[in-house]
């Protein structure tokens, strides 16, 4: 049972600032992974880390924890998005995950590959974030007992 073990004002104020800041930075890392270091995996882990941080500091009845619980419903969506992009390339007549064959009108090959990289990165980020949060919920077993099933 995670029940907000930190009563300290300093910890709570710092956490309330950091959680949203880390999420913002995760989005930056996700969408600028093609220009700088980072990418889907790191972004997903950072989103998960910010949610877990909020969960540990504010306890399981806080809005952050409820956001994390809702995130669990998206288990598999990221993987599905990844595979869907691959399937789209198949429909366009190319090999699986050959983005340049994806049937997107108005874009040339490199632009399609750029878009394909972006979409699969979003997929990876979602998948990793959900998996990490779900492992945390599994490890703190009492937390999710009656909540995710509802």
């Amino acid at each position, binding site marked *: 049972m995670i029940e907000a073990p930190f009563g300290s004002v300093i910890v709570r104020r710092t956490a309330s600032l950091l959680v949203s800041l880390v999420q913002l930075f995760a989005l930056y890392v996700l969408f600028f992974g093609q220009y700088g270091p980072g990418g889907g995996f790191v972004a997903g882990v950072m989103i998960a880390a910010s949610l877990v941080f909020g969960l540990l500091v504010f306890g399981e009845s806080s809005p952050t924890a409820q956001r994390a619980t809702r995130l669990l419903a998206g288990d598999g969506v990221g993987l599905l998005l990844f595979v869907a992009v691959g399937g789209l390339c198949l429909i366009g007549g190319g090999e699986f995950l050959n983005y340049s064959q994806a049937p997107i009108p108005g874009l040339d090959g490199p632009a399609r590959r750029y878009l394909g*990289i972006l979409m*699969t990165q979003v997929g990876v980020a979602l*998948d990793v974030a959900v998996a990490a949060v779900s*492992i945390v919920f599994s490890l703190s077993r009492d937390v999710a007992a009656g909540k995710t099933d509802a």
Partner: protein
Amino acid sequence: MTYSFELPLLALLILTAAGAMIVKELISAVLILGAYSFFLALVWAWLGAADVAFVEAVVGAGLATVFFLLTLSQTSPEDTRIRRPPPPIIAVIALPLLGLLLLYAANDLPAFGDPGSPASVHVSPHYIENSLADTRTPNVVTSVLMDYRVLDTLIETVVVFTSGIACWLLLRRDAE
């Protein structure tokens, strides 16, 4: 010189790694392991592998520590203290010899950043030269991971997904 930064970092790495193994309290070991991950992230950053440094800092020092702490919080206090029996004499003799053997073998590795090393002449030049024109992605690491070698990444994503599901199935069964 280059060594002014590397040697203290290496010393800290060895110190934290040894500390994590020596301390008796598992909670202390977990926290020292987190510090070890941070130093390792600094090493990656120093070697120019910013992406790997990122992952090491977030996963190794952040999430893995939380996983360990959550697991420890489910155990009773006497489980988190460990008695370490002295190592067998054969290990004390054999493991340093193995280390020496590895150091000897490391002499044959190509120098760091050597452009003529096998890893640098096979497919890497093609990726580095064509990434921008092929995929409009300046970050070659991203274009290799998500385009040229995307099947690898897909399978890794499947592994992450499976690990989440497996943890849920194994650990939640007890709770219900």
